[in-house]
């Protein structure tokens, strides 16, 4: 069972980050069988399909030879939580495993559908109906003997994902819905880990034509001290007309997924090597064939996610019931 590893049982303790922020190193534990704990976590390191053909560390060395020793150590020791393993998230996990990350947590409630097959490299038609996390975990586990991959078939936010984030080095968000992305940002800020938010999409021309006239994507690095996703320009419940295409099924591009996932991994490596600096946005424009990186500065001191008083607002998220009753009951009736 994985949650026992420092996982606090008292909800009040959940937000207490471990005293040391240094990532923890995990060795692969292997035994026959497959275990599922109460929270639904499948530890694929206890897989029954591990075999001698799994890649050895030496075989993977070429992807790490160029890394300076400190970065290589950081990669090996990091815990990545990937929330959303659709088209883009699947590439992120595959790249991460190939780069030498040894502890990856995959979170997604969805099952694979036939319309995913156009961009889901590990999937075969017979996998339709299986959990995406399971398809990916099986694929990765067969190839990397040192990789410990956990799966959480849950929608964010959930207590199990929250627990994993507490011990994560970074979280990669590959979610579609803007509210979920904002919520992940809030939680990452509260815990104190960087969020890399990935998005790809097609741009649609204004009425009456409404045809695809562009495509691209971006990687946003949201961390304490920098702008939140909202200040990057996201609008929960805002207008998303520019991104919806009146075509069924809607278009997607395996290339866009792969390129944005690759850019995100480069960002993550630079962040781990402490070389990214203040850069927090990388934007790909497919039509112009350009990739632009820049630094967005938050200009709203009143923002409750990244402004001056933001830490108090992060702390106000997910209180225990008695706190609510005490605080709100003092100013109005609770019923």
């Amino acid at each position, binding site marked *: 069972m994985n949650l026992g590893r420092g996982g606090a049982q008292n909800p009040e303790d959940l937000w207490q980050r471990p005293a040391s922020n240094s990532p923890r190193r995990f060795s692969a534990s292997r035994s026959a069988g497959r275990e599922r704990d109460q929270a639904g976590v499948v530890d694929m390191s206890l897989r029954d399909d591990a075999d001698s053909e799994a890649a050895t560390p030496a075989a993977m060395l070429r992807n790490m030879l160029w890394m300076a020793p400190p970065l290589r150590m950081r990669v090996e020791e990091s815990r990545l939580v990937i929330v959303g393993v659709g088209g883009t998230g699947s590439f992120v996990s595959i790249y991460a495993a190939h780069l030498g990350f040894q502890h990856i947590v995959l979170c997604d409630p969805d099952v694979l559908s036939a319309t995913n097959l156009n961009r889901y490299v590990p999937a075969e038609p017979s996998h339709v109906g299986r959990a995406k996390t399971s398809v990916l975990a099986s694929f990765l586990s067969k190839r990397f003997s040192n990789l410990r991959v956990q799966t959480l078939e849950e929608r964010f936010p959930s207590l199990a994902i929250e627990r994993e984030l507490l011990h994560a080095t970074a979280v990669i968000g590959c979610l579609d819905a803007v509210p979920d992305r904002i919520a992940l940002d809030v939680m990452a800020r509260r815990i104190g880990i960087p969020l890399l938010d990935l998005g790809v999409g097609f741009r649609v021309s204004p009425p009456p034509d409404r045809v695809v006239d562009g495509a691209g994507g971006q990687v946003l690095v949201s961390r304490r001290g920098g702008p939140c996703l909202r200040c990057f320009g996201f609008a929960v419940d805002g*207008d998303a007309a520019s991104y*919806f295409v009146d075509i069924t099924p809607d278009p997607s591009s395996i290339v866009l997924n792969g390129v944005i996932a690759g850019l995100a991994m480069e960002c993550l490596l630079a962040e781990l090597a402490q070389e990214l600096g203040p850069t927090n946005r990388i934007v790909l424009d497919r039509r112009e064939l350009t990739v632009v990186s820049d630094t967005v500065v938050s200009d709203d001191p009143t923002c409750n996610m990244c402004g001056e008083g933001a830490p108090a607002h992060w702390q106000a998220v997910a209180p225990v019931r008695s706190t609510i009753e005490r605080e709100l009951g003092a100013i109005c009736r609770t019923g």
Partner: protein
Amino acid sequence: MQDWLSLRDELSSLTSAGQEPTVCLSHDRYSPVAAVEWQSLARSDLSFHVPIPDLYAFARSGSIVMLRSAAERDREQCGVRLLQPREVDWHSYRFADLRENGWRERGFSMYVAMRYDWSFPAWEHTGLGGLAVVCDEWVENPKSHVLRVRDACREQWDRLGSPWWLHRWAMAERDLGNDAEASRLFVLGRKRSPWWDEYALG
């Protein structure tokens, strides 16, 4: 994932403005406040029940207000709809109150779609105080409120062509009693955006 610190400040403001709000708690870890209720200042026999969405104060909010009234005529007021099971299913992913049926237990079955903030794409949260003002405006002149909503939706549809705005325009026409126009817009929406799930609600 609600910012209840902001909510606490908003409730204080409501109290200062003469309201006597009641907070309905939920069992959801991330959305501990299911709803806030208060009585109309304009009509003492009418109560408002505002489901508090997930991500409250981190997002724009305050789009649905439920009503409890002993007056039968309120069922015929402009903008009032009876909450249907399929609408509850549709919106449950955003509201703990709908997931836990708190609205039903407290006797609120009618609702009005309230929009007091049309600014976009920038995020803006104006809070319960602003919503309370709009609620009382609706009480005093329901048709004027719905006309304003209808015009705003139509303008955004013309500008952006988003199925979201077309759907809300159609709903406003229905609220105004313009059934033929509402049907025309629903048909147009289904034809233009068959993948847009909300058209399935009719």
